[in-house]
């Protein structure tokens, strides 16, 4: 590698060491520990099918979390995708229940997702409002509109549409396959294309990016559109898995999504993070949640664990990054 006959200006950390203190390594180790601990709790844990089946419950959130990772790396945040999932799914279910042909109903759901992404993008990029507050507002709005459409009732979807999670491809449930494929594609985009490269550059230093001719507004705009669209896909998938749609679909899902990104080592202030990290973190979260269910831990304790994990994850990631920054 070193064809350069130059003297180092500063002592350089060896490669293995930088690899070891990467947050993704932490995630991976935790995952191994989690699987080991889980296998002590229940032999189910070593059954890959059991884990895959458990993963389908989280697969929609995990899919959106992959895009959210890119949004956070670009220096923004989106808290609205879970509400977006609910509204897209409600619109879709309502449309098909009122007799609109299925393809059109799906189209309506997806278009709604895109529109919701557009509203976020417009307020954050065109109006230059902080994404944190904007997406708290749109989170409330989207969830509220879902409630307007669905009321307190649940809307059923036709029998034949139910069960996306029961479709197996090579023995793997379709939502999990989608998650894995999307993770691969996004990993290549984020790590291998100029678009991905520029996402990191914007998140690291937006001013410098602008001076280097990088169109940061354009990139961020497209990310908000993308997350809106993917959230609506995830919402419709959830509808198929559950068989019916209520306004509280994926309620509180923003926590899980942010948690997956944070556990995977995405830096809350932007510029750092990987798809691999979020990918591992999604599995970790599934293992932890399933482990808690297997161990008969109250759902309540699970909430505490999730909230606590989020805080521990950002503290740990911040510490790791502040160490390597020096």
């Amino acid at each position, binding site marked *: 590698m070193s064809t350069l006959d130059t003297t180092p200006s500063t002592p350089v950390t060896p490669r293995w060491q930088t690899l070891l203190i990467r947050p993704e390594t932490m995630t991976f180790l935790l995952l191994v520990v989690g699987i080991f601990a889980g296998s002590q709790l229940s032999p189910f844990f070593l059954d890959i099918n059991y884990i895959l089946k458990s993963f389908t419950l989280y697969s929609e959130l995990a899919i959106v979390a992959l895009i959210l990772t890119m949004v956070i790396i670009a220096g923004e945040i989106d808290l609205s995708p879970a509400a977006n999932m609910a509204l897209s799914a409600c619109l879709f279910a309502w449309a098909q229940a009122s007799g609109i042909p299925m393809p059109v109903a799906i189209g309506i759901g997806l278009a709604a997702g895109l529109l919701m992404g557009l509203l976020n993008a417009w*307020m954050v990029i065109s*109006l230059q*409002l902080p994404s944190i507050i904007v997406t708290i507002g749109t989170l409330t709005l989207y969830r509220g509109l879902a409630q307007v459409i669905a009321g307190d009732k649940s809307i059923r979807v036709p029998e034949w549409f139910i069960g996306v999670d029961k479709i197996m491809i090579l023995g793997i449930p379709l939502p999990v396959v989608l998650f894995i494929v999307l993770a691969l594609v996004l990993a290549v985009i984020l790590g291998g294309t100029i678009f991905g490269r520029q996402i990191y550059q914007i998140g690291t230093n937006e001013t410098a990016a602008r001076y280097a001719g990088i169109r940061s507004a354009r990139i961020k705009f497209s990310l908000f559109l993308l997350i809106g669209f993917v959230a609506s896909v995830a919402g419709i998938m959830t509808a198929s898995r559950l068989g019916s749609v209520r306004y509280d679909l994926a309620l509180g899902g923003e926590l899980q999504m942010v948690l997956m990104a944070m556990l995977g080592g995405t830096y809350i202030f932007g510029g750092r993070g990987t798809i691999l990290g979020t990918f591992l973190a999604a599995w970790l979260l599934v293992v932890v949640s399933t482990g808690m269910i297997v161990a008969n831990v109250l759902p309540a304790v699970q909430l505490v664990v999730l909230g606590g994990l989020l805080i521990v994850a950002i503290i740990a990631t911040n510490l790791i990054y502040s160490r390597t920054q020096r």
Partner: protein
Amino acid sequence: MSTLRSILLRRESGIAVMIVLFCLAVGSVKPQFLTLDQLRIILLLTPLIMIGAMGQMLVIVARHVDLSIGSMLGVSAMVSGMLYRYVEVMPWWAGLPISIAVGATLGLGNGLLITLFRLPAIIVTLGTLSLYRGLTFIISNAKQIDRQYIPSELKALSQTSPIFGIPWIIFIAFGVAILTYLFAMHTRVGRQIFALGSNPVAAPLRGIKVTQVTLLVFAISGALSGLAGILYASRWGFVNPSNTGAGFEFQVIAAVVIGGASINGGVGTVLGTVLGVLLLGCVAAALPLLGIPGTSQAAIYGAVILIALVIDRSVRRQGIVGLKRAGA
């Protein structure tokens, strides 16, 4: 003349006008909206939000946000509820200081995480939103505290009235608003919160202890959520681990931002916030009369937050332009 002009130009007058116009509009369709009885309904919808909004306003003025208030409300209501249920000798009023103390402790926890590790408040409180909600389930063993355990004196706070048929709980809410006003406008630390939010970089240069002030702000937000928690038990007569306080944060944030508090910190008034709360109360009271299902409330809160953001931005824009002109 210029006094009148400056009064008219204030954000508060804008909201007041909106309230009047809204009530007149609804009243023209449904005349029963403009009765005293209706006013009582409106007022009864607001006390919890008003109390929570006072704390949230201070947090937003200090350039933070607190998403965990609904969960803090839940925990503190549940702690008092459990004590009422299992501690026979507990006097009915003891729930007030206990809930406030529990809330303050939880709020302090938020503040410590934010200041100690320099984390963004939004993520910390998103985490504690879930964490504190889980706590509520744990201490209650996921069971609701039913009507019979809530002392009747406590419930009476929401039903009996010292004067004019207005229940105690409303007086408490306005009392909190007045205290917040005195605190924010007439104590040194109250002004320091505004200074901190107005210019965080300059604040330490003028001797403001940023860490302590931030901790105090989050503790206040927690304490007021705690007060709202015990009053929830009073108002509804039960404490439910999953419903109590759920979604509270969005109502409160909506009220605060429409009341004119700026998400850029340093700006916010008690009067504006009170009016913001009342406007939301009017909307909530009008919906059933107009035949709009109550389920559309959340959507309205969301829309209100977004509209307030856009208004805030255009006001700020003018402010900047004005600054440049004045500098000429």
